[in-house]
């Protein structure tokens, strides 16, 4: 059984939440089954009642668990099996088939939210976020310039990942078990700034497609990305929505 790691700097309730979520998503705890009582969970993981309650409440909030007064807490739904289909759709939005995509990481750092980033990510203004800036070469040519903002507590280990050879969305879903349940896409036309123009290889002021994407796992905003895609060589777009069990 996976246990709480007290050396880990993630909060105990968040670790417990992740452990319980895995049990649900892997069907170790099946839909309809009752989960152990608070007291049993305290003993199983050697944590306080407050920690257990906070983790369980978050799972209730995200729709994994349902509480029935006087009876207990039950597994309500199990998301996960449709992840790969959704991932493929997400990747197709930016990278149409038939081109080889290579990634160049231009920046990978941690910063505080500026502007309205805290609102976009639904976090307090004094929480750290991971900042990634990547250039995607499509068929060897600069095609997409993407900035991603991820609340640091969502996936601290992302800072150490090889993002030139792994897809970020794959890492989230397959390695860290963070399943996207909703992605909001907002599309507009914009004009390249001098810096962007230099990176993407077009004259300043050229029109490009600007895609804002808000990624959610349950009710939690896990990432916001701002992608600029040149329009002169590549086609755009598709769809997406995951059915929830």
């Amino acid at each position, binding site marked *: 059984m996976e246990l709480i790691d007290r050396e880990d700097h993630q909060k105990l309730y968040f670790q417990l939440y992740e452990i319980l979520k895995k049990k649900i998503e892997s069907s170790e705890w099946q839909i309809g089954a009752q989960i152990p009582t608070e007291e049993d969970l305290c003993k199983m993981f050697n944590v306080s009642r407050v920690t257990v309650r906070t983790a369980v409440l978050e799972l209730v909030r995200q729709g994994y668990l349902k509480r029935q007064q006087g009876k207990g807490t039950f597994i309500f739904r199990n998301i996960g099996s449709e992840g790969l289909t959704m991932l493929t759709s997400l990747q197709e939005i930016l990278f149409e088939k038939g081109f080889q995509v290579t990634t160049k990481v231009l*920046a990978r*750092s941690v910063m*505080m939210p500026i502007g309205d980033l805290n609102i976009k990510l639904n976090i307090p203004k004094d929480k*750290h976020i991971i900042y990634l800036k990547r250039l995607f070469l499509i068929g060897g040519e600069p095609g997409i310039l993407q900035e991603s903002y991820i609340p*640091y507590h969502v996936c601290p280990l992302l800072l150490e990942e090889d993002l030139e050879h792994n897809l970020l969305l794959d890492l989230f879903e397959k390695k860290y078990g963070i399943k996207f349940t909703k992605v909001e896409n907002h599309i507009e036309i914009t004009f390249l700034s001098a810096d962007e123009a230099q990176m993407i290889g077009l004259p300043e002021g050229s029109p490009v497609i600007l895609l804002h994407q808000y990624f959610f796992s349950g009710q939690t905003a896990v990432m916001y990305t701002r992608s600029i895609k040149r329009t002169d060589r590549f086609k755009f777009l598709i769809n997406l929505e995951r059915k929830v069990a």
Partner: protein
Amino acid sequence: MSDSKVAKDVMIGIFEYPHVPYWFTISQAIRIVKVSFISTKKYPDPLAILVFDEKYNLMGTLSLKDILRGLEPRFLKASDTAQGLKEDESTLSLIWDTLFDKSSKDLAEKPVSEIMVPAKYYVEPADPITKAAYLMVHHDLILLPVLENKKKFVGLVRMIEIFDSISDAILKE
């Protein structure tokens, strides 16, 4: 003296402090000071912001004093080459007051990399705290980074913990 104490025994986590990339402007850093310290009434000692490069290497630190210094109109700063003229500080502060609006607001758009204190000195986690004390005292540092294998930034040493450890050794009977 505090023989067995090393940097990692007294270091604090890097997430105690706000992080910014070097291209943030001074005005963005000011907003971060406001939301991280002033609005939340959290006042870590010392009040500082950490400045990183695009590969998440620590480039420097930014104290409130560094920010205010960065907002001073340029001609108020002491010049090494000035001959004979002695600054009348009270007069200069009045001049700053009259120029504050136009000059300092322009300066606030400069990147923080221009006003930070570069992180030139560091200790390794296993270095004795006396080394940290020496570096902090002799280079007038408010925070000293702790780097693993000269690269990975794992923590910060502050004067208060260094002082505490050294004073324990001094006061020990």
